[in-house]
């Protein structure tokens, strides 16, 4: 018996090669089997720019109104005509038992798939807000398409009307509403509130949500009917709404917003009207530059106190009376006047929020937790009661820094002559 000394080749031979070729052909043909899974053509999308949530006609139902952009009208076309009708947006609304159902109903109206990823703003009616926005927060956080930087606002008017109004300078009103908040820190009439902050405040054990507020005001003058004055409605920023848990408990007026913004966001330059140092009947307008605001918690003898310090640089932008910046007394008087006014403003807000609403929108709980984490554990369960009774001292320092371009008072030269 001869031993098979010659090893049989494992991977060789014509048959083997044929099998390899066949296998690779099959594999290559398998690749296109996937097709274009998950493909959505951009021209098959209804890109939502703004969403409004109202109460429906029946009790317990919601009405969702949606502002969809029409790309051909929004951007113009250089190529073939694309059916431009002149309207940049297409607004529809639908009702349903829950938000999700209402949105499903929308798809029965819309010829394209509703696409939330470019949504700018969510507008919630105050009635809905008073009953609780927990469901809204939940829906929009779960949705994978929605961006967490979408703005969320409340309104006393109908959200459907707000969402359908053409407002501002932008082509698409949703974008215009989003950009309204760009300079909100300067006007200090509204806070910035987006989905992420709302969610963080809602989930936090101490802080409460605060949502910006918009209203419709007749401010736009129709250029063709100029004699009628401001006849068209435009969207205006108007304060904020204070929430407790998820229910709206109160409104803060625009004048009261400075205090809230100081605690939550960063104050930007703001304007203030103070009385003239030389003439108490006239007013001086000052601009508050480079404000720096600090809150420090103190904990003595089981007592929580907060001390807030605000330092501002004051520049005189409009003097209704004679004001010379090198007159030290006048400067001092002005400084005191500014400090008083500011302090009063902030204290009004603080008292209102503390006593009337008892909702910690100032995020003071977080401030306390940061400095005294062990003591926080004792108080975190009943923070809202403690917040309403703590002492919040506000101290304002101001320094007149510049008179903008003018150094000497703007006075009529004739007065001097007569003096002589």
């Amino acid at each position: 018996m001869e031993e098979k000394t010659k090893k049989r080749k494992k991977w060789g031979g014509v048959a083997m090669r044929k099998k390899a070729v066949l296998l690779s052909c099959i594999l290559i043909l398998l690749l296109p089997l996937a097709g274009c899974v998950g493909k959505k053509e951009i021209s098959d999308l209804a890109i939502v720019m703004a969403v409004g949530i109202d109460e429906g006609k029946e009790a317990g139902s919601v009405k969702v109104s949606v502002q969809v952009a029409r790309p051909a009208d929004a951007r113009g076309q250089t190529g073939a005509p694309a059916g431009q009708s002149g309207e940049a947006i297409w607004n529809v609304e639908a009702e349903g038992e829950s938000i999700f159902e209402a949105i499903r109903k929308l798809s029965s109206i819309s010829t394209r798939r509703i696409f939330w990823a470019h949504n700018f703003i969510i507008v919630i009616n105050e009635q809905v807000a008073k009953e609780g926005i927990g469901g809204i927060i939940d829906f929009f956080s779960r949705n994978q398409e929605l961006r967490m930087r979408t703005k969320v606002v409340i309104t006393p008017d109908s959200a459907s009307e707000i969402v359908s109004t053409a407002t501002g300078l932008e082509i698409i009103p949703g974008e215009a509403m989003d950009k309204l908040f760009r300079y909100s820190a300067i006007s200090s009439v509204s806070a910035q509130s987006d989905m992420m902050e709302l969610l963080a405040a809602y989930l936090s054990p101490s802080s409460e949500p605060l949502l910006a507020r918009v209203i419709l005001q007749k401010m736009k003058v129709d250029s063709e009917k100029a004699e009628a004055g401001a006849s068209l409605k435009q969207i205006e920023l108007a304060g904020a709404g204070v929430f407790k848990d998820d229910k709206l408990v109160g409104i803060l007026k625009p004048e009261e917003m400075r205090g809230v913004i100081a605690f939550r966001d960063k104050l930007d330059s703001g304007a203030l009207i103070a009385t003239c140092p030389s003439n108490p009947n006239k007013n001086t307008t000052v601009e508050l530059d480079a404000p720096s605001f600090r809150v420090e918690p103190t904990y003595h003898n089981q007592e929580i106190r907060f001390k807030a310090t605000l330092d501002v640089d004051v520049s005189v932008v409009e003097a209704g009376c004679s004001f010379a910046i090198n007159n030290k007394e006048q400067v001092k008087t002005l400084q005191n006047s500014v400090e008083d006014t500011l302090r009063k403003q902030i204290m009004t807000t603080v008292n209102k929020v503390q006593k009337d609403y008892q909702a910690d929108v100032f995020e003071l709980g977080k401030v306390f937790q940061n400095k005294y984490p062990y003591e926080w554990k004792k108080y975190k369960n009943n923070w809202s009661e403690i917040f309403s009774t703590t002492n919040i001292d506000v101290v304002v320092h101001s320094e007149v820094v510049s008179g903008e371009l003018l150094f000497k008072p703007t006075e009529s030269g004739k007065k001097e002559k007569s003096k002589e």
Partner: protein
Amino acid sequence: MTNNSKEKQFTNHLTENVKMIVDILQQSVDFVKREMVFHEQKQIKTALFYIDGLASIQHVEKVIEAIMYEGNELIIRNDIEEDSLLKLLDKHVLMNSSFAAITELDKGINAILSGDSILIVDGCSKAFHIQTKGWDTRSVDEPQTEQVVRGPRDGFTENIRTNTALVRRRIRDPELRIEAMNIGARTKTDINIAYIKDTVKKGLVEEVKKRLERIDIDGILESGYIEELITDVPFSPFTTIMNTERPDKVASALLEGRVAIFVDNTPFVLVVPTYFWQFLQASDDYYMGYMAGSFFRMVRYAAFIISLTLTSIYVMLVSFHQEMIPTPLALTIASGREIVPFPVLLEALLMELTFELMREAGLRMPKPVGQAVSIVGSLVIGQAAVQAGIVSPFMVIIVAVTGISSFVIPNYSASYSIRLIRFPLLIASGLLGLLGFSVMFALLAIHALSIRSFGESYMAPATPFQPTDQKDSLVRFPWWAMKKRPDLADGDQQKLGENQKPSPPDPLAKKQMKSKNENSDISSRKKEEENGKGSSAAANSQAKGKQQAEAINKKETAQTSSSFSNKDEGKLDTLFPVNQPEEQISVIEEGVEKDNAAMEKQQLFLQKTRNITSASGVKRWKKKRKKGKNGEG
């Protein structure tokens, strides 16, 4: 390809030899046989064979002249008698610059077919192989495919000897070796392998030769044939062998330790081994300043990435991930796509194919027409397509930018391969979005990383990361900073001498040198002061100082070069004392010592005061120290 004639050798009889040659080459109208009679007295018959067109008529006529006339005259007049006819012809008759005596018939046939002539003499058992090559070739001109703004403008031609000469002109190193081979059974194309012996890695030349010898093909018409036959990765879209038309590129490659392969009848020379990033480097980078060169190189890298991925990314984002596009841009894209009936992938493929069509058509058209059509064509077709509603205007922009970026790649064949790679990437991203794009890109990247080009990793010096090689990859460091040859070279690693960074002359050293000269030459200065005025003396001494400095330098260089006669040596010694150079050095050394001492003092001070944070603190410390010292002292 039978080798019967290999064994055959020339015989003594002319008629037999002639018959052998004519049998093999048969009747061709350009195959010429010229019979002559040599030596008036002895009447020796000779026959000359050459191919008309390949052989230069001047050289051939020189041979004929030598045989029929000049040689005869020489022998008769000078009465030269040689015993062997061979020696006679070899030493006294033939007047060509190079010839050899051959015995095999095969070699003779090859010689005739290469353009040389074969001279057969009755009674001689060897035939003469005379160099008579000379045919019409293209003159050395600017290379068509690789044009530069700054740099030499000579390019290779189809003549292999001209090509090697162009490279030899640039590298006058005796270590530059050029070896010859013949490849192709029927074409017997000349192949020359060039390398610099002490920079090439061990085994590289042997590997190249081995691969070339392995080739068994009937004809090599272009270096592209050889490229495909010796490549490391026959199935890959990446080219692992660089081909170039520029001699300065070949010369710089040889200096880096690479091997060049010249192929006859083509101006494209192969260079191995190759890195992928070489295809993105142009000769311009090296000749312009290093800042401009680096900038344009980065532009080229960006263009490479754009040409590879821009269309795929656009298709992927617009088909699958619209949320990634910023909102205003998304609306613009959507507005463009409103009326287009095709999905984005199809539109992209259509536009890409149209662009390739136009480019290819522009290549084939005759020059004057081609330019106009390609520019006008692309503009008009693009605009017309948009107006007709077949494509969106955004797509036209994307495809145009991609196309232009692909032309930025300097190496023509590399740009082809990159264009090829674009299509699978595009299809994958159009089918599966970001997943498809990333998988296909990963596949390509893994494939590229696994390739080797003649032993060197294809993606070096990026991976595997060689820190010494980074000076020429992303940016080009100045020439005075590139000290070593790249890692692929072996042997002589040092490229640059010491202290090559240029700088203006140091005024401090010059002053010290000058003052030293003035001090040492006090006797001559005193004399001058006695003679001339103060200012002129100062000016004179300054001038003299400069002169002395120059003379010292001259003396030093004169000492190092050996063109220095003993007669002059003594003279210079009296004018400029010999010990001056050492004193000059000692002055500089003193200065250096002073610097070192000052630096040490500074460091000590810093250490002692490291805990003091303000200037007033330092003042106080100093005061205290002073007090302490005074107290002690």
